């Protein structure tokens, strides 16, 4: 399975190549060249990830055995998340072709973007906890710089806030890794899993779990660690906001936490799932409530990211096969519709320079594609059938009832209702209605195509729950997370 190392190598090489066009006078050729590099790399990663769906395997970097070197593990969980994130990343890259030209430094932008992609893919694939930390920091450091990319007052302020809180989170994570290492004297996740299974939990492991939970909750912006997100995500350029909300907080936040907590430490009962459930419910309700009062379109979307992360955490926190499926499915769906919404906001901003919903009024008449795709995404995030958000929320609710928590199901429904009301506000004030403005045109083709593609997925992703795709995408992921034996066997052999 040498091919899986390409998921990391390809974006890294692309970042290196794009950096050649990062300095000196900006001109058309440079922008075009870096566009081509970024499109080629992210497109390549997308094709690769689609080809690899349903396959499993490991690759030992440098040929060292898993106990000594770094192992890349391509299992069911990683492959499902990777397919969706690569799709979203590719769409965001295509969207930035025209969008980023106005920032006057396309080369720098794509260098950072591709580094972030390399970090995200690394977090998804790595089988070594310290390596996970490294990739997590690669992704985070490039995202700090991307948030500050416009270098205006507010962007810098948001970036600094994000930097401080997120690096505190990183320090917690590193401390957790140190505690795990002190107990197992090894960094390989599968080996740690087998040691913990044999020797049982000790004080070190509990401490490590506490630090992991704190650190990754900051990265995932679960309430009460959410303060940076509503500032940082709207401050970035639109395609980056879409990637931060749609991909980054999921992979370096909830994915990494669940990977370490469930498949490495095997804590599918007890404190960690409980914490995920409670912080999930709090994020779900308060994120949506905080969003209600917002008039800045992107800021409103950022608050909804907190709320939707709550749903994902709730799904994973139930720690039943159905709960994991529901959480993973909602993770994929949220990647798609939230990045679509951010791209809509970006398209409107690109043409009009407006982010305030009260001043957007009636924009759907002038920008029909952005208007209709944003309608699809709004219905999707509010959980209206037949769009994808409905199916995953339904699954989460069913999983709650099945796991014996009907109260949680009630909160999930309530959160969905609040979400619906806030997106009715978006549609009524922002997109629908009459307008006197005549001059605004629809966004260019390179922006509408990604929006249409994502909207298409919003409509049809419900089909993933059919028995065939479901086995490939979700069942193997649930197995990896809930039975650490399977993961250990895959990496270390029998």
């Amino acid at each position, binding site marked *: 399975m040498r091919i899986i190392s390409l998921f990391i190598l390809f974006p890294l090489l692309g970042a290196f190549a794009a950096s050649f066009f990062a300095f000196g006078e900006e001109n058309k050729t440079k922008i075009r060249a870096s566009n081509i590099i970024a499109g080629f790399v992210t497109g390549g990663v997308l094709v690769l990830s689609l080809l690899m769906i349903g396959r499993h395997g490991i690759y030992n970097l440098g040929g060292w055995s898993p106990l000594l070197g770094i192992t890349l593990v391509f299992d069911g969980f990683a492959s499902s998340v990777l397919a969706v994130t690569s799709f979203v990343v590719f769409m965001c890259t295509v969207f930035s072709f025209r969008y980023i030209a106005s920032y006057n430094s396309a080369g720098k932008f794509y260098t950072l973007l591709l580094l972030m992609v390399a970090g995200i893919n690394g977090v998804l694939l790595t089988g070594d906890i310290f390596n996970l930390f490294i990739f997590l920091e690669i992704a985070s450091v490039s995202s700090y710089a991307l948030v500050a990319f416009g270098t205006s007052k507010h962007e810098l302020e948001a970036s*600094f806030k994000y930097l401080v809180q997120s690096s505190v989170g990183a320090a917690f994570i590193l401390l957790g890794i140190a505690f795990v*290492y002190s107990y197992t004297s090894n960094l390989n996740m599968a080996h740690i899993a087998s040691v913990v299974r044999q020797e049982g939990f000790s004080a070190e492991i509990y401490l490590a779990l506490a630090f992991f939970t704190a650190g990754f909750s900051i990265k995932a912006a679960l309430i009460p660690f959410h303060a940076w997100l509503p500032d940082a995500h709207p401050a970035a350029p639109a395609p980056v906001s879409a990637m931060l909300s749609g991909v980054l907080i999921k992979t370096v936040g909830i994915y990494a936490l669940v990977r370490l907590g469930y498949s490495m430490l095997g804590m599918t009962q007890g404190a960690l799932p409980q914490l995920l459930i409670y912080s999930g419910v709090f994020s779900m309700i308060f994120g949506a409530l905080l969003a209600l009062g917002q008039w800045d379109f992107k800021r409103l979307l950022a608050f909804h990211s907190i709320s939707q992360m709550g749903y994902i955490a709730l799904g994973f926190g139930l720690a039943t096969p159905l709960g994991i499926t529901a959480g993973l499915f909602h993770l994929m769906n949220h990647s798609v519709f939230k990045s679509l919404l951010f791209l809509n906001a970006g398209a409107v901003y690109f043409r009009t320079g407006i982010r305030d919903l009260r001043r957007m009024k009636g924009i759907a008449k002038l920008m029909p594609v952005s208007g209709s795709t944003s309608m699809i995404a709004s219905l999707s995030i509010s959980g209206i059938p037949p769009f994808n958000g409905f199916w995953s929320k339904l699954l989460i609710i069913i999983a709650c009832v099945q796991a014996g928590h009907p109260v949680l199901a009630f909160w999930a429904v309530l959160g969905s209702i609040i979400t619906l009301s806030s997106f009715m506000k978006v549609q009524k004030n922002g997109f629908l209605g009459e307008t006197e403005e005549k001059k605004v045109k629809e966004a260019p083709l390179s922006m509408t195509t990604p929006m249409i593609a994502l909207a298409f997925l919003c409509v049809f992703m419900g089909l993933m729950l059919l028995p065939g795709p479901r086995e490939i995408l979700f069942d193997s992921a649930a197995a990896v997370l809930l039975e650490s034996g399977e993961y250990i066997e895959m990496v270390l052999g029998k």
Partner: protein
Amino acid sequence: MTNNVPFAYGLCMLLFFIGLYGVITKKNLVKIIISILIMNNAVNLFILLLGFRSQGKVPIMTADTDALKFALRAMDPLPQAMVLSSIVIGFSIAALMVAVAVRLYKRYGTMDISKIRELRE
């Protein structure tokens, strides 16, 4: 000497929480940056101590070393490698933070974060 190691662990933790305290309470950009560096370095020290062994040997194996004796005496080299990477990451974060802080100072004319808060109206 051996008995002092748990004490040193405690000191590392103390240093870590001093850093955390600084991040939470300080209002000056530079002091916040310094506090984060303190946190990072506390973690680095802690990891280094994990591989420490009193009167241990340098972990270099030659052809005529007895593997068993070596395993009993040598220090653990892996934490040192980890700390190296961690220092590099800490450095890049520090550089970025300082760069952003300089820009912030130019835009707002102050280092006080309680005055740099236009985002939360």
